[in-house]
Each structure stands twice: as structure tokens, then as C-alpha cells.
């Protein structure tokens, strides 16, 4: 294995594992604000307990997100030093801003939200929940801005020493790629949050316990899930796809498995891309649909891989194709499931429809898969570029860190993260088993001196 491959896997593995946590916390943060708002408005202790319960789940996810997130910032320097050296003037900026504008905010108010409920007013506690939400969503924004610049570099100049320098702060932050991706990505996070919330509700009802909480979870989860599942396809996914097609034709050709440019290109629903023969094996195709989706007319020509020099094809073509199709296929399932569930909720049948509850329960892992596949689509589509059109991935990794040193630490992370995954599962299982009802946790007496 080459050093380049090891460093790519290093980053890919650690960030894929990391993103399992923030996608839930960002989605849940919004839903916790909803729970806290209802509690504040109605004075309902039940909604407050529901908020506290999800606050605990949030806290566990948050800690795992924090500890797996620290390596991400380090790895720009440790594993991608040549890239960091040239790009720091541009993307170091949003990365530092994430810390300064978001993490301080988030950690401060999360501490208050979790530990300080008895020290502050109800309104202040609600406000802490809102601030945690703002912090986590601002954090997501800066990360998307960072990625967006690598996907679609804007507002930059090159200094004589080769380093990139930002020319316009606002253009960097308002990169159109970033705005579209942010909308799409945050909607994806809300899908994860609402599917998990609905699944816990479904689990409680199937178990025949904690019905009053289960109903709250299902109500909030299904309504938020329906809205987000629609938004993820239209307009966010649709607009983002069109923008990719115009700016990264090689990526879209790889995602769709379009080897030959065509007017009235068909949409491949399933199949296996064959790089050797340059065609899709065993395809199921909807005629003209791809042209329509991208250009709004069935006649338009879509650029295929044949118009792209071979050394600029996405380097892992089949993986790109599968990742994209898995994401899109799951997105379709999310809409179907949520339309049916919302309909049952409206007809007041959801809480007794066991088959629907089972479907909701079993579907909770799918948003994680879809979000991961979505990110793989974005990042594999960018290949072979590290900064699209400007710097190749092969020019960016740390060439002073040998392949075997990289492999050693990659394996170290794999072992450690396997352990973390195990601990995480145990913790979440315990939280869900002990439920949202108040616990009489014994507190040892402790002499308290006056403040």
C-alpha cells in the first residue's frame, strides 16, 4: 500500500467514524429546542423530561463527537502537511473560526444546559438549549465552508511561495457550493435526529411501556422526519445536484455511471459500472430522466466520462457510483416511510399500527448510512483532486510520514474506535432502558460551605 492511500484511508476512516456523532447532535439540537419550547409554552413537565432525556443522549453523542473531532483538525497537519502548508491561508480560517465562534459557545451553554438547570431560570435553560443548537449548526457551517472551498475554490489568490491566500472573506463564507451543501447536509442531520427519536418512541410502544413519552417522540420525530425527508430531495438535493453537474462534470458522470455523453441521457437506477468495458453491466434505466433532472429538458446533452481526460476521472469510480445510489435509494425510502407514518399519525392510528412502528424502529440506522454515503459521494466525486482543479490528492499528503507509520496509527485508531463504538452502544442502551422518567439517583451528603 502506498503512503498516499494510507493517508487517504486515515482521514476517511477517522472522519467517517467522527461524523456518526455530529449528525445526530446537530439534528437532535433542533428537536430539543422544539421539546423545550413546547415545555416552556405549556408548562408541561412531561415535555421537559423528554427534553432532559434527549439532552442526556445528546451529551453522550457530544462527548464522542468532541473526542473524535479533535483528531480531524490535527490530521490536516499530521497526515496532509503539504496540503496544509499551501491551503492554511484559506481554509485554516474557517477551521479556526469554528473553534472561536462555535465550540466556545456550544461547550459553555451545554455545560449550563446539562449541569446548571437548578441554577438558572426556565427561560434561561430554554435559551441554553437554543444556544447549543446555534453553536452546533454554526460549527457545521464552518466545516462545510472548508470542504466547499476544496470542492469549488473561490476568492483566492496565489502568493509567490505557492500558498493560497483568501481574497474575499465574504465570498469564501458565501461560496455557492457551501450554501447548497450546507442546506442539504443539515437537512440530512435532521433526518438522522428525527429517525432516531421516532425509533425510540416506536421501541417504547412496541415494548408497551412509557406510552406518554413514546407519543411525544413519535409525534416530533415523524413530523420533523417528514419535512426533512422532503427537503433533502427537493429543493436541497436537486439544486446541489444541478450545481455539481455544472461545476464537476466528472463527478456527476461517475455518480450516474455515464460513460458516454448523450442527449437525452437515461437515469441508471441500478447496475454495476465496468471501468474496463466503459459501460454499466445489468442496468435498469429510466430513459431521458438524467437530462431532465439536470437541465429540465429530456433533450439536453449530459457530459459523459468520454469527454473527460482519463487522468481526471474519479479514482474510485464504482465506489462513487454505489455510494451515490445508496444515498439516493435510501432518500426515496425515507420519503415513503415518513409519508405513510405521518398519514397514520394524522388518522390517529400510528400508535397502534405495529407494522409501522416496526418499520420506524428498524429504519433508524439508515440515515447514518445515507449521510455517510452522501459524504463519500461528495469526496470521491472530487477525486483525483484535493482542491478541485488546483491541487491533486497525490501532491497533498505528508511525504515525511512513511506508509508504515501511517498504517500503525490508522490501526491504532481502528482499535480505539472499535472500543469507543462498543462503549457508546452500551451507554445509549442504558439511557434508553432507563428512560425519561425521573430517577431517584442517590446523592451522597456533602458538606457545602456558603458561596
Amino acid at each position, binding site marked *: 500500500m502506498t503512503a498516499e492511500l494510507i493517508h487517504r484511508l486515515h482521514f476517511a476512516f477517522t472522519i467517517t467514524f467522527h461524523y456518526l456523532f455530529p449528525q445526530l447532535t446537530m439534528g437532535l439540537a433542533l428537536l430539543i429546542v422544539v421539546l423545550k419550547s413546547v415545555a416552556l409554552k405549556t408548562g408541561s413537565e412531561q415535555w421537559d423530561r423528554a427534553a*432532559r432525556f434527549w*439532552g*442526556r443522549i445528546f*451529551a453522550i453523542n457530544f*462527548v*464522542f463527537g*468532541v*473526542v473524535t473531532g*479533535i*483528531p480531524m483538525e*490535527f490530521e490536516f*497537519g*499530521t*497526515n496532509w*502537511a503539504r496540503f*496544509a502548508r*499551501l*491551503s*492554511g*491561508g*484559506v481554509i*485554516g480560517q474557517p*477551521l*479556526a*473560526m469554528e*473553534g*472561536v*465562534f462555535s*465550540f*466556545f*459557545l456550544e*461547550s*459553555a451553554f451545554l*455545560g*449550563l444546559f*446539562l*449541569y*446548571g438547570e*437548578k*441554577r*438558572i431560570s426556565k427561560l434561561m435553560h430554554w435559551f441554553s438549549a437554543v444556544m447549543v443548537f446555534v453553536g452546533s449548526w454554526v460549527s457545521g457551517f464552518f466545516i462545510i465552508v472548508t470542504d466547499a472551498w476544496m470542492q469549488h475554490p473561490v476568492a483566492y*489568490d496565489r502568493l509567490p511561495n505557492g*500558498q493560497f*491566500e*483568501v*481574497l474575499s472573506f465574504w465570498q469564501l463564507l458565501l461560496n455557492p457550493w457551501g450554501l447548497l451543501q450546507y442546506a442539504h447536509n443539515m437537512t440530512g442531520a435532521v433526518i438522522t435526529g428525527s429517525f432516531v427519536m421516532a425509533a425510540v418512541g416506536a421501541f417504547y410502544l412496541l415494548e408497551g411501556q412509557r406510552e406518554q413519552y413514546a407519543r411525544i417522540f413519535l409525534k416530533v420525530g415523524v413530523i420533523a422526519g417528514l419535512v426533512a425527508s422532503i427537503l433533502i430531495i427537493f429543493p436541497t438535493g436537486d439544486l446541489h445536484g444541478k450545481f455539481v453537474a455544472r461545476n464537476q462534470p466528472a463527478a456527476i458522470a461517475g455518480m450516474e455511471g455515464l460513460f458516454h455523453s448523450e442527449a437525452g441521457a437515461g437515469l441508471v437506477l441500478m447496475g454495476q459500472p465496468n471501468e474496463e468495458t466503459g459501460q454499466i453491466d445489468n442496468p435498469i434505466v429510466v430513459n431521458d430522466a438524467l437530462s431532465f433532472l439536470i437541465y429540465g429538458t429530456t433533450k439536453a446533452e449530459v457530459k459523459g466520462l468520454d469527454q473527460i481526460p482519463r487522468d481526471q476521472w474519479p479514482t474510485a469510480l464504482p465506489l462513487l457510483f454505489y455510494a451515490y445510489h445508496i444515498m439516493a435509494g435510501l432518500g426515496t425510502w425515507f420519503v415513503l416511510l415518513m409519508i405513510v407514518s405521518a398519514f397514520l399519525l394524522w388518522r390517529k392510528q400510528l400508535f397502534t399500527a405495529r407494522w409501522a412502528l416496526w418499520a420506524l424502529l428498524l429504519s433508524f440506522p439508515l440515515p447514518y448510512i445515507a449521510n455517510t454515503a452522501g459524504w463519500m459521494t461528495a469526496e470521491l466525486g472530487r477525486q483525483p483532486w484535493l482542491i478541485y482543479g488546483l491541487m491533486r490528492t497525490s501532491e497533498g499528503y*505528508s511525504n*515525511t*510520514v512513511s506508509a508504515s*507509520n501511517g498504517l500503525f*496509527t490508522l490501526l*491504532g485508531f481502528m482499535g*480505539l474506535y472499535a472500543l469507543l463504538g462498543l*462503549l457508546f452502544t452500551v*451507554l445509549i442502551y442504558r439511557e434508553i432502558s432507563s428512560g425519561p422518567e425521573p430517577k431517584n*439517583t442517590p446523592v451522597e*451528603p*456533602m458538606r*457545602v*460551605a456558603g458561596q
Partner: protein
Amino acid sequence: MMGFIWFWLVAVMIVGYVVLDGFDLGVGVLHLFLVRTEAERRATLASIGPVWDGNEVWLLAGGGTLYFAFPLLYASAFSGFYLPLMIVLWLLILRGISIELRNHIDVGVWRALLDGVFGLASALLTIFFGAALANVLRGVPLNADGYFFLPLWTNWQPGLHPGILDWYTVIGGLVALVALTLHGALWLTIKTSGDLAQRARRMVTPLWLALAALTVVSLAATIAVRPVSLNNYFNYPFTFVVPLGVIASMAGIWLLNRNAQPVKAFLSSCLYLFFMLAGACWGLYPTLLPATTGADRDITLTRAISGPHTLAVGLVWWGFGMVLAIGYIVFVYAKFRGKVDLRADGH
């Protein structure tokens, strides 16, 4: 000018990190042998529970600031210190998980294991951070491109081809271990009460004596390893106020702790950390990372600095953002001020 400003802004972030995360690292080291009952342990950990991850943000924000202000330094140092940094990452992960997990687990054996992991990870982190700073002060074997790769150790001598650990950097690690453990002990005397606070206060004396000795040794060793560290001081003699500050703050810790003024003693310890770090930075300036392979390979401010527009833009949002951040931090510390009260807090 921009270089001068950003050099000190990054230094401020490092000081912020060491002063704040420093006390919770110190509490992590101390709790292993200071605490006698489960209630005491809970009080000890509750004293850092609401703030430790906010304190760790200083490391991230500082790293990010370093990345955009001095990309060459960031790239070179992070890839060159690859192995110890990965170990630091693993320790940070284990430490964060273990403190958080123990709130959720009520089996004694598991709790003891997690407490042990938390304490050991905290101790190793302080040693690594101290050694890291000593590595920067000593210099690294930079190649012509500005990169290097250090093994964990070679012959334990700071020479042309040193390792991460040699006798000099081990001293640096010990200074950090003792200084931060002392810092944590002072924090505990503020935040806890009763017997526990008394024991924490009694710990200060031996730690202070060890730190005083180590401080003198480390200053002498630094001058021996890199004599040019003194140049800035002799060129601008008024800057000898920094080592005087080290002495004054050490004296302050001793006297204020003896007079039972824990808050002021803790602040003196903050000042000690500030003066030590500021003194080290001033000894380096305007070099960022000295080369053991010849001064012409030093990574200097002018070599590593980002483009002018990047830095000008950065100054605006950095100033604005840090004012906000300090606002939240003051707010949170004010909300959790006073002694730990196990009955009022928790989730």
C-alpha cells in the same frame, strides 16, 4: 507588524489553553491519590465537569489559529511530531471518554478503571505537552524543505538528531506535570470543602518545592541547550521583568496559600504559567521552530506567515469572536462559581 501581532495572539491561545485546561488536567492527576471516598471523588470531578471540554476548546481554537496564521509551521510541526501527536490524540480521547463515562456507570470496578484511565491520561498529557514545548525550544532537524520527522527517542541527547524525548525534554515534561498538578491542587482548594480541601491545600507545599527546583533546573537547561534564547532579553533588558514575574508569582502562590486565600493563590499560579510561557516565547521570537541542522533552516516568522489579506481579515473576526468567547466563558464560570454543590447540579 502583522507577524508580531499574530505571534502573540497564538501565544495567548496557548496560554489560555494551559491556564484553563491545565487545572482540569491537574485535578485529573491529583484525584488518584488525593481522594478517599466516592463522595469526594464525585465532588472532585464535578468541580471540572461543566468546564473541561470548554477548556479543551482552547487547544482546538489555538490549533486552528496556528493553521491559518502560520501554515508552514503547522504543517511542519504536526507532521514532524507525528507519533507523539497521535499519542496525544489517543490520550485526549481516552481522557474525555473516561470522565464522561463514569457518570453513567455505577459498577465499582468499572468506575475504578475509568478513574485510573482518567488520571493516567491526564498525567501523560501534561508530560507530553511539556515535552512538546521543550522540543520546540530545543529545535528539530529541519530539512531544506522545512520538514522533519522525529523518532520518539534516540540517544537521549539534544544534539543534531534528537528524539522527542531526551534529557532536556524530559525536564520540560516534569515541569509541566508538577506545575499543572499544583495548579489543579489550588483549584480544588477553591472548589471543594472540608477534609478534601484541606488535603488539597497540604499538597501545595511539596508540589511548590518540587516546582521551584524544576523551574530553576529547566531555565538553566534551556540556556545550556540553546544559548541564543537569552539574546532578546539582553537586547531589551526591560524584558527581564518576565523572569521576575516567574519569581514573584511563585512567591505569591506560597504566601497566599499559607494565608488561606485560595482564589488569589490560584490566580498566582495562572500568572506563573503565563510568565513561563511568555518567557519561552520571547526567548524564541522571531523564530518559531529552530533547526538543529543550522540556523538558516529555522522556521521564522517571516517564512511561515500567511498572506497579508488573510491576516488582516483574520484580525477582524478573531477579535470579535474572542470577545464573544470570553463573554461566554466568564458567564459560565460565574454561574458555577463557589464550592461544588452535589445536590444542586447534575443531569
